[in-house]
């Protein structure tokens, strides 16, 4: 019995969400007094691999097979499931990232394991019951799910578990598995990265604009505010539906659900579908000229005012604040 995590890398680097996964899995391993193994697949250097030990990995498996350099959903799932079997891991934890959501169900089926996606808290063990809290109804609620299978897979929502340092001395071991050809039917042609911007699902601060901004030409100040805060930009559904911004920025029930530390909504009224996607943000700021906008009811801070007057003032204040610190 032990815990295995999949440490997904992006271009040879682990993101914060992976250290969250390690911290979370460390706590699970401690709950049941067992060890934590991490598996990494693809190009990555030893320093980066060793960083997993800082958050509690006892053992680090490195898969350097050239065929697995880039993400192949089917093949990666096979490798991770194989590692779980070899390590005797009965709990596999990974990030509920785009890739994680492709892997988790396949790993679950391979290991005959129940799967909780979108977990937001540590599992609870009560009277032999293993339960995990997860988001449901697109952020409008949470569900507590019991996994009744012997093996379990958990996909952790980014930004929902705090990173805890728990330095271990871990050894990096090469891990080799035989791959099967039928796992490589899907072929990667190209990776397109928008490197200059903070990615929305990973962002700790999100600056989001709505129809109140009147048109795509007015997004300059949103981008400036976001860039000053190191934030990702986002938008409401009407904005992406009108083609003012790409769909990948649409936050809400039928778009992406985010859980940043700070969500700044500018010119968004706060329809129930939008609120669903942002309800797990830690702090919500609403800027809207309509004092009756429903968004104010779920906001922590608000400014009733015209975005075109308020946002430039915020930008000036941040510049001043930055000059001071």
């Amino acid at each position, binding site marked *: 019995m032990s815990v295995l995590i999949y440490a997904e890398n992006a271009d040879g680097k682990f993101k914060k969400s992976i250290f969250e996964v390690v911290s979370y899995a460390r706590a699970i391993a401690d709950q049941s007094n067992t060890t934590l193994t991490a598996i990494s697949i693809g190009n990555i250097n030893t320093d980066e691999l060793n960083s997993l030990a800082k958050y509690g990995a006892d053992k680090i498996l490195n898969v350097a097979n050239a065929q697995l350099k880039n993400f192949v959903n089917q093949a990666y799932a096979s490798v991770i499931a194989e590692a779980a079997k070899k390590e005797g891991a009965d709990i596999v934890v990974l990030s509920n990232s785009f890739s994680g959501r492709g892997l988790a*169900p396949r790993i679950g089926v391979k290991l005959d*394991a*129940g799967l909780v996606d979108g977990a937001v808290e540590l599992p609870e063990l009560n009277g032999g019951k293993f339960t995990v809290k997860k988001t*449901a109804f697109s952020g409008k609620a949470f569900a507590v799910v019991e996994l009744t299978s012997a093996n379990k897979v958990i996909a952790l929502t980014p930004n929902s578990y705090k990173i805890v340092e728990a330095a271990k001395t871990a050894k990096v071991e090469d891990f080799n598995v035989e791959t099967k050809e039928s796992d490589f039917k899907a072929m990667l042609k190209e990776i397109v*990265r928008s490197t200059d911007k903070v990615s929305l699902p990973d962002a700790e601060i999100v600056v989001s604009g709505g129809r109140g901004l009147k048109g795509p030409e007015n997004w300059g100040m949103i981008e400036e505010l976001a860039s000053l805060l190191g934030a990702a930009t986002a938008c409401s559904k009407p904005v992406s539906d009108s083609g003012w911004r790409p769909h990948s920025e649409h936050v809400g029930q039928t778009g992406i659900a985010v859980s940043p530390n700070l969500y700044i909504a500018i010119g968004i009224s706060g329809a*129930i579908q939008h609120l669903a996607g942002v309800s797990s943000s830690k*702090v919500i700021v609403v800027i809207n000229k309509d004092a009756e906008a429903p968004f104010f009811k779920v906001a922590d*801070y608000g*400014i009733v005012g015209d975005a075109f007057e308020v946002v430039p003032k915020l930008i000036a204040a941040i510049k001043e604040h930055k000059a001071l610190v």
Partner: protein
Amino acid sequence: MTILVCISNVPDTTTKITFTDNNTQFNTNGVQFILNPYDEIALARAIELTDGGKGTVTVINVGEANTEPTIRKALAIGATDAVRINAKPHDAWFVAYQIAQYVKANPFDLILTGRESIDYNGSKVAGMLGELLDLPSVSIIKKLELDGDKAIVEREIEGGKEILTIPFPFVAGTAEGVAEPKIPNMRGIMSARTKPLTVIEPVDVKTNSEIISYETPAPRGQVKLVAADDSGKLIDLLHTEAKVI
């Protein structure tokens, strides 16, 4: 080309979510159920790909008789025929297992799901189907184009996208960008009544998860308003009080 679109019957996006029986049951009282919005995208793309006699689109749903209005809606939008597996959709594993058994007996060139259902948001059925059928699966796609006996798909990743080529058959979960949802026209609505809807009984399978209870997000305190003239003060508050910048 034969396409299978897996559809879910979910609460309308405007639904206020509440629970009964000591927070153990979702309160469906007064809730309107709809075709899952992401499944509408899958269905729309399937219809586009088979338009003009280039194939058929079958929709499949695991649900009890009360999901039939949603299935008829899919038929009205343009699906060729429908299958309902007569069971409560216990969890993603149960649903995927039932659909996989059907597909093993009735193979398709392409199997589409929505990227997730808007009730439990799992993104699980596509991957589970892929594994059960030993087919490639792509969980969240933004684009799907044909290229001979292969498809070119765009997969979303954090801060970008991957472009993949995949030979048929495969499984994919569709997100915004793949197609615009279609609205049924009068002819579609009329013909939906007579299109074939086959009801089959589920097979036995051991489930591995149970929902024990539900919670709603903790309410936030009263909003703290900052005067528009004094907007800069907000930055101070976010720094010194909320400590988020």
